[in-house]
């Protein structure tokens, strides 16, 4: 049995080697006796097998047919190479043996390296079911960290603005800073929940207006009145809901709020994104100036109102805003002037940046 196995292993050697030395190797096997000697012969023949196939390619010469005659021409047919069945059998055996050796080495390896497990702690019904019965109950050892999400410039502003304007907070039921189709449709119900005094309509305070307490401006009833009015006018959502511009959102306006909100949808995608509900800064600033200087509330800052002490710091802006030189400044004129100055400032700063200077470095 052992002799047959040894002979079989000898026959797995390359043709040239086994043709030359097979009989001698088998003769040596027949000479030795004892389990230890036979074991060493088997170890030797395995090493020899590996050595001959891997390192001794120079001794593997192709078998050339001998010339039949010296005078007759030699014809050779270059057929497509096909390995012999025995060679295929030998190759298959070596492959299986190598695979088995690798599997055994992996199963009986001395060191146990920690497995890298990537997954989730809490399975979700949206995930594909995985049969974990064959896995050991190990803690997840590898954390996958995602990079920072791209910064949305509107998000920080919107999160503050939606809290400040209570109407927006009420409309944005899922607090994703977007007024969805469903939230627009259900706007009347959301607005009615803000009616804390149960008078059927929403005043500026119920919409989010606040001046604080204890300050001097609160004592000025006229200023408070103008500020409340400008608050309702400056914020696009409130201005859209207050269709009659009386400074309050009536019961009828609440009922029609869904249709009013849809008018703010400039891109027609059916939802209101922050850029559609947050006011442009310049009209707000203009409205604030108007709330302080337009004391008679005629919608214009007259030459008399421009001469007040409160208007002194803004004299340069107000003079520039009166472009038709009629002595009165409208909200549009003031907004246009502020926008022009803002554009000039931006160009100036860009020029400074291009020259490698900072604004505070220029005297």
């Amino acid at each position: 049995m052992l002799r047959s196995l040894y002979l079989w292993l000898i026959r797995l050697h390359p043709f040239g080697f086994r043709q030359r030395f097979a009989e001698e190797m088998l003769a040596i096997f027949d000479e030795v006796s004892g389990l230890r000697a036979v074991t060493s012969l088997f170890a030797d023949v395995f090493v020899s097998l590996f050595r001959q196939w891997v390192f001794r390619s120079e001794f593997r010469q192709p078998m050339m047919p001998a010339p039949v005659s010296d005078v007759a021409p030699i014809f050779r047919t270059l057929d497509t190479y096909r390995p012999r069945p025995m060679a295929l059998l030998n190759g298959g055996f070596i492959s299986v043996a190598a695979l088995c050796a690798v599997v055994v080495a992996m199963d009986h390896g001395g060191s146990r390296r920690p497995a890298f497990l990537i997954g989730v702690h809490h399975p979700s019904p949206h995930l594909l079911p995985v049969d974990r019965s064959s896995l050991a109950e190990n803690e997840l050892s590898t954390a996958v960290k995602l990079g920072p999400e791209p910064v949305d410039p509107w998000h920080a502003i919107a999160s503050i603005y939606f809290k400040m304007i209570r109407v927006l907070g009420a409309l944005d039921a899922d607090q994703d800073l977007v007024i969805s189709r469903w939230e627009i449709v259900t706007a009347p119900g959301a607005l009615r929940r803000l009616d804390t005094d149960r008078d059927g309509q929403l005043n500026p305070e119920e919409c989010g207006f606040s001046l604080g307490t204890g300050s001097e401006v609160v004592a000025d009833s006229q200023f408070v009145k103008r500020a409340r009015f400008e608050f309702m006018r400056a914020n696009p959502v409130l201005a859209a809901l207050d269709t009659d511009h009386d400074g309050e959102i009536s019961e009828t306006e609440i009922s029609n709020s869904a249709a009013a909100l849809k008018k703010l949808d400039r891109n027609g995608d059916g939802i209101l994104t922050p850029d559609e509900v947050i006011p442009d800064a310049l009209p707000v600033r203009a409205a604030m100036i108007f709330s302080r200087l337009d004391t008679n509330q005629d919608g214009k800052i007259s030459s008399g109102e421009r001469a007040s002490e409160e208007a002194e710091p803004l004299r340069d802006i107000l003079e520039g805003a009166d472009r038709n030189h009629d002595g009165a400044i409208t909200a549009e004129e003031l907004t246009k002037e502020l926008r022009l100055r803002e554009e000039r400032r931006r160009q100036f700063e860009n020029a400074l940046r291009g020259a490698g200077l900072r604004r505070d470095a220029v005297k």
Partner: protein
Amino acid sequence: MKDVADSFLPLAPATLHILLALAAEDLHGYGIMQEVARQSDGRYKLGPGTLYDNLQRMMKQGMVEEVGGRAEDEGSRRRYYRLSSLGRGVLSAEIARLEGVVKEARLHLKNLRPRRA
């Protein structure tokens, strides 16, 4: 001839032992294995695979050649091997090299003093 022999140096242990085994007389494969074990007091044993791998190479290099079987081994599978003149030259060159190594080693060991514990 000497330059050709030197080109094979230094010899691998298996090659040196096979050349040494064949230096005294022609031997068959199993005889070479036994002679190598005898020369090394059993510390170095050649397996048939290693032996015939080296013989294959040494025959190609011309250090060893096959000789006809003996009369007493008529009908036997044994083949006998002998050193060629090149093999003898290579063995002589290797022995001379090893003598130089031993001489150098003795010179250095002589100058070494035992360390005190």
